[in-house]
């Protein structure tokens, strides 16, 4: 057992309580804010010596000096002469610790006087109640980092039952931007989760929405790991290697030639899948894109009518000039045009109870979607989507929406989350547990502002997701400005370096001033953790993620610039068939329009056929090459009769 490093003290003015105690240490004692200590009581309670575990939350230092003026007088007002004093004043290091756990837990009494010891690894496990889920048969511990103090290195585990459900769930990360702490922490935690999540609890996957920058774009590429990180990885029982299975999804740019992602370098395209939706997929979530004030009950009724009676159905009406089968935005536009022309001919103001003004408004708003979400929404109706129903265990699915307009981001988020939820409810997603990572909650789930569809969805996941296995890992810069029910439902909270202004908000009043100071100055790679088993926040260190960082990835794999249609087709198809060459593509597409070429490419990418060349070629209509026109033969002029009086 180690030597005692302090003694518990209590005075009438500063008494100990069941939740807090004070102790002093030697001046050079290796303790500080966040250090976990153990107190061994002197008197047994019910025959058992009490052990109290606490974490230092405040520290005081003072001397026997009664007034600062005495020091000034003592050195004739010259600070430089203070160094010549023969004796240093008697000085104290007095610490306040918050109780983590008392053993025995009953009767709960004020902390007794006793010696204070630095907590060793076993003590840390007991103090944080990790012993309950690290014991034989439980094994639901997920390493989140290493607690370090005074020579003690103790792995801190989160309880999988409280991180992914069903007991509690969700994780929220707060921290200032620019330090990459939030993204790094999630990348690390996913690695740990994939490594340590118990097999018997089923499969697990993650869907990450990359909402800004390239940070999540190189999860399958190895990053630079230093020796100190390797030591941490070893201690934490995780291999320092990138994710083995990652799939990227990104819509096309507005022109439709290349994918709208940081990861569109040709060398990285093998696991990047286009994300494109047609009318059917979008109309289910029209609410996301349509302005609530704009779309009233009447417009809503018409949209419902279209969804139920028009889309994907054979639709005919005496008013219309022909039968319609609407499968794309182009079809829908033709349908609207026909309806409105029919009404004009009849000089009618309403059709099937829908007023002409409502029809015009809905037409305008819906037609607009394909423009606003160009690259994601296709006129043609071609769909390329996440593999709902066949999600793979320990796979990360990254949806890159960083370069998209806000509307398109909202639409992607709403639809993907809804689909995930539907599949998890039906238990046919392909995995049992799914982590959804969303950054920038200040934008997507603000505490104030309009009640958006996205915010409603996030609230829904936060409140009900854990019953389905749908777990939200969220991040933001200002926790105080995120909807309270989202952060409040997060069983686990991580804090990186914090902004002092944020720390002054009411949500942080439970933290001591010293803890706040530590939070405001945390180094990169350090976190403060709150977890249902921990009665007080704990500081840990986590290793640098073993994946390529965004900045390095962007330098090594520069984003592709604007390219021609032929090169775009080549880049898209070559991952499917490396034998495809640029001249072959150029020869094939020379006779076709841009729309036709893009449609053919998208169909090929979606089908991923065995014979890519044949399939791609088959998508084009037959065009008979033009033949040079033959010169017509001149007919012989008949000679005039000999007796013709007008002949020459």
């Amino acid at each position, binding site marked *: 057992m180690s030597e005692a490093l302090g003694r518990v003290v209590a005075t009438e003015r500063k008494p100990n309580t069941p939740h807090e105690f004070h102790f002093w240490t030697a001046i050079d004692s290796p303790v500080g804010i966040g250090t976990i200590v153990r107190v061994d009581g002197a008197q047994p309670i019910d025959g058992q010596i009490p052990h109290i575990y606490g974490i230092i939350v405040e520290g005081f230092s003072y001397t*026997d*000096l*009664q*007034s600062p003026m*005495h*020091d000034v*007088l*003592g*050195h004739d007002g*010259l600070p430089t*002469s*203070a160094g*010549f*004093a*023969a*004796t*240093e*004043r*008697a000085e104290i290091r007095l610490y306040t610790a918050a109780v983590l756990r008392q053993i025995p837990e009953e009767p709960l009494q004020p902390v007794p006087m006793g010696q204070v010891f630095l907590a060793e690894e076993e003590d840390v496990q007991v103090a944080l109640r990790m012993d309950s889920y690290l014991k034989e048969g439980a094994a639901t511990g997920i390493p989140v980092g290493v607690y370090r103090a005074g020579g003690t290195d103790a792995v801190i585990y989160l309880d999988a039952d409280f991180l992914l459900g069903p007991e509690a769930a969700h994780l929220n990360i707060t921290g200032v931007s620019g330090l990459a702490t939030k993204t790094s922490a999630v990348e690390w935690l996913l690695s740990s989760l994939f490594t340590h999540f118990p097999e018997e609890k089923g499969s697990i996957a993650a869907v990450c929405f990359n909402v800004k920058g390239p940070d999540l774009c190189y999860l399958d590429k190895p990053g630079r790991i230093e020796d100190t990180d390797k030591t941490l990885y070893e201690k934490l029982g995780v291999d320092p290697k990138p994710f083995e299975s990652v799939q990227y999804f990104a819509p096309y740019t507005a022109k439709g030639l290349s994918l709208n992602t940081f990861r569109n370098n040709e060398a990285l395209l093998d696991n990047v899948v286009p994300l494109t939706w047609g009318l059917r997929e979008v109309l289910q979530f029209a609410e996301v894109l349509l302005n609530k004030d704009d779309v009233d009950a009447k417009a809503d009724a018409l949209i419902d009518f279209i969804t139920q009676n028009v889309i994907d159905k054979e639709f005919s009406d005496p008013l219309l000039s022909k039968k319609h089968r609407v499968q794309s935005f182009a079809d829908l536009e033709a349908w609207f045009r026909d309806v409105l022309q029919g009404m004009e001919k009849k000089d009618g103001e309403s059709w099937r109870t829908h007023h002409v003004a409502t029809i015009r408004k809905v037409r305008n708003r819906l037609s607009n979607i394909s423009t606003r979400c160009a690259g994601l929404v296709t006129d043609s109706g071609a769909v390329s989507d996440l593999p709902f129903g066949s999600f793979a265990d320990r796979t990360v699915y990254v949806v890159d929406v960083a370069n998209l307009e806000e509307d398109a981001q909202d639409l992607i988020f709403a639809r993907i989350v809804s689909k995930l939820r539907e599949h998890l409810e039906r238990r046919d997603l392909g995995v049992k547990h799914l982590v959804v990572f969303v950054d920038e909650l200040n934008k997507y789930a603000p505490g104030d502002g309009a009640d958006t569809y996205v915010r409603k969805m996030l609230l829904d996941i936060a409140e009900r997701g854990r019953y389905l296995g749908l777990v939200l890992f969220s991040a933001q810069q200002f926790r105080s400005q995120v909807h309270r029910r989202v952060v409040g439902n997060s069983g686990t909270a991580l804090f990186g370096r914090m902004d002092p202004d944020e720390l002054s908000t009411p949500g942080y009043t439970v933290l001591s001033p010293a803890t706040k100071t530590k939070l405001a100055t945390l180094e990169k790679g350090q976190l403060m953790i709150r977890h249902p088993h921990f009665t007080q926040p704990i500081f840990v260190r986590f290793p640098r993620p073993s994946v390529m960082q965004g900045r390095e990835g962007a330098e090594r794999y520069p984003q592709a610039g604007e390219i021609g249609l032929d090169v775009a087709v080549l880049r898209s198809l070559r991952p499917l068939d490396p034998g495809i060459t640029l001249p072959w593509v150029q020869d094939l597409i020379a006779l076709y329009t841009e729309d036709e070429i893009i449609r053919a490419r998208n169909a090929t990418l979606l089908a991923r056929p065995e014979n890519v060349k044949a399939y791609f070629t088959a998508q084009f209509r037959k065009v008979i090459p033009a033949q040079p026109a033959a010169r017509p033969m001149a007919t012989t002029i008949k000679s005039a009769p000999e007796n013709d009086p007008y002949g020459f």
Partner: protein
Amino acid sequence: MLVSNSGPDAASRAALRLLVDKLPGLNLIEGGGSSEPPIASDPPVLRSAQIVEGAALRAIKVAGVTRATTSGFGAFLDGTQKVQVIAHSLGLPVVIGTISAAVRVRVNKRLVTWGHQPPRVERAIYLPLRYLTQLSGDAIAAIVAAQWRIIDTSTADRNGEYPSQHPAVLLDRAVRAVDQQREELEDRLAQAWCAIGESPLFIDGGISRTPDVAASTCAVGVIKSHRTLYVEGESLKVVMGLQKGERSSVFRVSPRSRSSVLSWYLRQRSAEGRDALWGLVRVEVAECDRPGERADEISRWVLAETSPLALPDGRWDKMSYGIRDCEEFLRAIS
């Protein structure tokens, strides 16, 4: 030396319970204080001394004093005493005296307790046994058996005369006895230090009580109280007129029942606007060959010990921080 009077502590309460049990008719005093001033003091006197540095006493600027002057003291010795009149039996005072002493050694500018001799705390019950007739021999034996030392305050003096039963006289006897016990405790520690002779020891008070200490080059006594001033006439004017950083010539102090030592006055702080004794201490060292040089050296050390200030102690003008540390330490453990 720290003197304090306060209510009974846990040890005193235990003694009180024992006495109540053994001494019928004992009247407990609320709060355990004393109705009389516990400190007996001699009247202020002027006394002549033999000058050993020059022909007449004069003021000498201590040479070589700068801010960077270092002190040669390696440790500090002080003692404390606490006198509690906890009860009386028909006016006869029952006193508990607590005495303590410690040497605090300076290590890397910080003071720690000397390892060779742990700090000492002793308690005793001071009773006028001659007049406490109801206290049987068995009762005294029982008190002693409970690890309490009994000191009789009613013994005959060197002239064979017994003190009267006047409560103030008996209390004065008790206080003097406690004082004497405390001095003996300090002397034992000082002797132990000087026997090892690690480094110069700063002693709060005189060094002449014990021959070993009085003759040791390791012991330096610094006296803050001036009930007896070893100067008369013009010499008194010189001493009262000492400026900050000045000392008097060295003189010899030869008390009748004590050892002879060299001594001088030293003004640690400017007395301007204060009383004449402000910042004035008297230093005692063992006899030596070059008293002037020794006085300069020791004076530099004593002046170096004026920082940091011993505030908030009321005697901070004369007290060194090391002695205050001793007293605070003893207050904590006794």
